């Protein structure tokens, strides 16, 4: 368990960053007002970490202790991180358990998906409108370039691994293989059902040789 001084420092920093960021997204701030008074506790095992988020009308409070949270999510750290970063909206096969009001999770997910920080405004506050806008334009340009390179790089790496190196199967091959495995499993299930039925028809004191 972390020394409370360290956890308090970490949660205080996180709280400051989140509330600062929310200043630049009035729409999200307005949506968060609907969650005022509600709280979410995230309890990770291995390593044991607890993070509590309490929604106030004008800000978010982060801590490591909370009494009776509205919703509590418990699971491994990797499971919780996966859930937070993925697009999934249910907990099936996630190794995460939810307690309390799960509608809050859906609300938070929707709000997080629609998050749209006006980071240009943040730069303007720091550098002034003229310089800030120019820097933001440059950054936007670089980001677009990086995004495009990232996408094409991902595609090229995939093609290299499957077509040139033959290190991994192509998606289509994998799909066909999965279909064949499914067919085989279904056929095996059918065969087992038939054998079962045959055993039932056979007299129990005279088993088949």
């Amino acid at each position, binding site marked *: 368990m972390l*020394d*409370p*001084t360290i*956890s*308090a*420092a970490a*949660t*205080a920093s996180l709280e400051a960053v989140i509330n600062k960021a929310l200043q630049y997204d009035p729409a999200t701030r307005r949506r968060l007002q609907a969650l005022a*008074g509600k709280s979410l506790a995230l309890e990770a095992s291995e390593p044991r970490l607890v993070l509590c988020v309490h929604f106030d009308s004008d800000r978010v409070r982060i*801590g*490591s*202790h*909370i*009494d009776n949270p509205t919703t509590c999510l418990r699971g491994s750290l990797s499971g919780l991180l996966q859930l937070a970063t993925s697009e999934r909206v249910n907990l099936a096969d996630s190794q995460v358990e939810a307690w309390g009001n799960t509608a809050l999770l859906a609300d938070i997910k929707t709000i997080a998906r629609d998050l749209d920080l006006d980071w240009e405004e943040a730069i303007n506050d720091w550098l002034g409108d003229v310089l800030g806008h120019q820097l933001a334009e440059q950054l936007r340009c670089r980001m677009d370039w990086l995004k495009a390179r990232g996408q094409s790089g991902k595609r090229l790496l995939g093609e290299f691994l499957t077509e040139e190196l033959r290190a991994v199967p192509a998606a289509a091959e994998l799909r066909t293989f999965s279909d064949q495995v499914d067919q085989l499993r279904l056929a095996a299930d059918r065969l087992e059902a038939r054998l079962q039925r045959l055993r039932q028809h056979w007299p129990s004191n005279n088993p088949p040789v």
Partner: protein
Amino acid sequence: MSEKKTTHFGFQEVPVDEKAGRVADVFHSVAGKYDLMNDLMSGGIHRLWKRFTIELSGVRRGHKVLDIAGGTGDLSYKFSKLVGPEGLVVLADINESMLRVGRDRLTDRGVAGNLVVSQADAQYLPFPDNTFDCITIAFGLRNVTDKDLALRSMLRVLKPGGRLLVLEFSKPQSDLLSKAYDTYSFRVLPFMGKLVTNDADSYAYLAESIRMHPDQATLKQMMEDAGFANCDYHNMTGGIVALHKGIKP
């Protein structure tokens, strides 16, 4: 002829009825620069200790909170935000100078409506039984003359189910930290006090009073003896400070 009862004032033994006066002199002397010195002495970490105290308080809208030895009002400010206009925070301190600094500071920060300031002795709290949902005493209990009497007084004014949080210096858990802490307390603190407030004696008293304060287990036992249930404590910064929690059954 019976001998006069004595108690600790730092490392000195003083008559019981003198301690309050001497402690008052210390705080009259440091009140003006109390916050500055807290930040300097702890490197700002006292804010994290207080933050954790607020987290553990479980205070929410509508609650009544008593902040004993509230001094310059750090905790009261946060509590006044948490309890909202329908709640109440009582900032109590035995020392007039500290209370005046705290009241002015809270007024300057716009806290009004749900805050009451009260000059009160922790041993004889001037409130009806079963009044508060939460009581905090941060860095104050070691200055109280009769700690058991104060704990019983706090129990009386708490509502059943209400919680007491005692934030106080305690015993470091490692020998190495303990040695470093001793050097810091007895050499650096009085020097710092001399430099900033021109009052080395008050900060020497601070270091001495910390050493004379009961350790974690003893204070927990004292809370249980006073009648608190589910008593527990959290060591912070290696045990330099501990936060004790007890519930009124």
